[in-house]
């Protein structure tokens, strides 16, 4: 009888744990694939294989490395084949299943469509679909993996896109100290709590919990880099309201995803916060921020303490995401 009661209580606790966990995360926009499925295995293999680039030197993982929260820390701007440098900072790939548009300018309408951009962009992989599909179809490993994943060969565009998108849908980060706090498993320190209060006051409107992005676009009033002249989302919509608007990135795992901003201009988190306190370009008529935030030096320290609590080391070191340790 005792054991029976214990089981019932454990089940109740487990169920309440699950319901709390699900309660604070919204419904994903994109179906999350089963991490152990053959489609995800294929996607993981493709994501890490330089075969996709024109000269077979770089893979998706070259610019989106797991130890950088699937961003890249060596360069401010993305680094393509033949040392070509792009125009934007490689964004972190975190919780993409909750996104409705992709890329800094929202150019891609789906996770699958997004895959095509780096494969074909001149300053990234500079390859063609014809070449990629030919290479994959001539590779015994991929014929086997595609057959396993989709029950058919040859490998077609739809398989390539679906596999990589499915793998990317599994890159979920929801095991930070913040998440533990949300699930009432830990309490924030006084400093984290102060930072959290400041965060809700200044940042949450755009970097909305629990994804720490509202999925929209904003002009953060950065001084224009005239060597890039990047107009952001305006290039896509041609709507002047979108001039220098860029996708609002998630703040999860910020400690690992430096450098920051669409052009990677800030190497340190403190530089980003200083920008919001002192660096706002008030002459930018298209800015989304009305005025600089009132942040004293110790406020910035408190905010940083909170932002550190968004670090999810189980995400950074999840063996299921990497090739070497994949089961």
């Amino acid at each position, binding site marked *: 009888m005792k054991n029976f009661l214990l089981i019932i209580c454990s089940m109740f606790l487990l169920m309440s744990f699950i319901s709390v966990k699900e309660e604070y995360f919204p419904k994903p926009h994109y179906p999350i694939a089963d991490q152990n499925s053959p489609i995800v295995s294929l996607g993981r293999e493709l994501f890490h294989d330089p075969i996709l680039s024109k000269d077979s030197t770089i893979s998706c993982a070259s610019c989106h490395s797991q130890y950088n929260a699937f961003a890249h820390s060596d360069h401010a701007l993305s680094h393509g084949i033949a040392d070509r440098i792009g125009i934007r900072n490689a964004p972190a790939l975190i919780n993409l299943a909750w996104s409705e548009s992709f890329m800094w300018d929202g*150019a*891609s*309408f*789906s996770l*699958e*469509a*997004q895959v*095509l*951009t780096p*494969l*074909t*962009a001149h300053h990234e992989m500079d390859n063609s*679909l*014809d070449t990629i*599909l030919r290479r994959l179809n001539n590779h015994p490993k991929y014929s086997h993996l595609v057959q396993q994943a989709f029950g058919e060969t040859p490998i*077609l*565009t*739809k398989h390539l*896109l679906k596999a990589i998108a499915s793998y990317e849908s599994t890159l979920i980060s929801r095991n930070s100290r913040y998440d533990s706090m949300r699930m009432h498993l830990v309490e924030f320190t006084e400093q984290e709590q102060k930072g959290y209060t400041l965060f809700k006051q200044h940042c949450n409107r755009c970097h909305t919990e629990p994804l720490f992005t509202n999925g929209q676009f904003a002009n953060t009033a950065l001084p224009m880099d005239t060597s890039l002249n990047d107009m952001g989302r305006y*290039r*896509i*919509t*041609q709507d002047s309201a979108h001039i220098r608007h860029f996708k609002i990135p998630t703040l999860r795992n910020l400690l690992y995803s430096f450098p920051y901003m669409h052009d990677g201009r800030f190497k340190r988190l403190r530089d980003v916060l200083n920008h919001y306190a002192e660096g706002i370009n008030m002459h930018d008529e298209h800015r989304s921020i009305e005025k600089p935030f009132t942040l004293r030096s110790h406020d910035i320290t408190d905010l940083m303490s909170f932002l550190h609590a968004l670090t999810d080391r189980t995400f950074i070191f999840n063996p299921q995401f990497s090739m070497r340790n994949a089961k």
Partner: protein
Amino acid sequence: MIGKNHITLNTPINSLDDTLRITACKMYISIPSSTKQIIHVLDIEETLTCSIPDEAETVIFGIDSMHTVNTDFTDALDPIHGMFWTWNSGYINVKIEGISRKSIQNGNIFQIHLGGYLSPYSTAFSIRIPRKAPIRMEVDLGPSIQTVLKQYGGTVMSPGKAGHELMTILQRSITIVE
């Protein structure tokens, strides 16, 4: 067609006070149906003919927004046909490329890639067709080419105002020959 001249790929055509050569001409045709929309890529290099069900009352030039954002990237919608913008997701509804002395581009090339599914510059449009088969549609590319050469230096290759304007011109240049 360019004016009254039928187009043959890579063959000079004397028209528009110019000697033009068309090097590529492709377009999407969608046929609404009670079940699944039928989509064809017409390519001057292969065929400019497609079958239309007897019950069809309209055809769409291009891919509408619903079929764009819900694409499964298969068959006619496979980006391998070179009719999908990878830098700005969406289908190129009409692609016309060629050479004209009036183009200021390197090698005197001109390139017209018309697409875009977002308002207000959506480029897919539908036209009513007679229910008596077979039908022939003649599309005069002359006015579009002339506009791109005169106003846009020979290239329009992004969704937006210019592409929308050129698609409107193209729409006015279609004649249905029963």
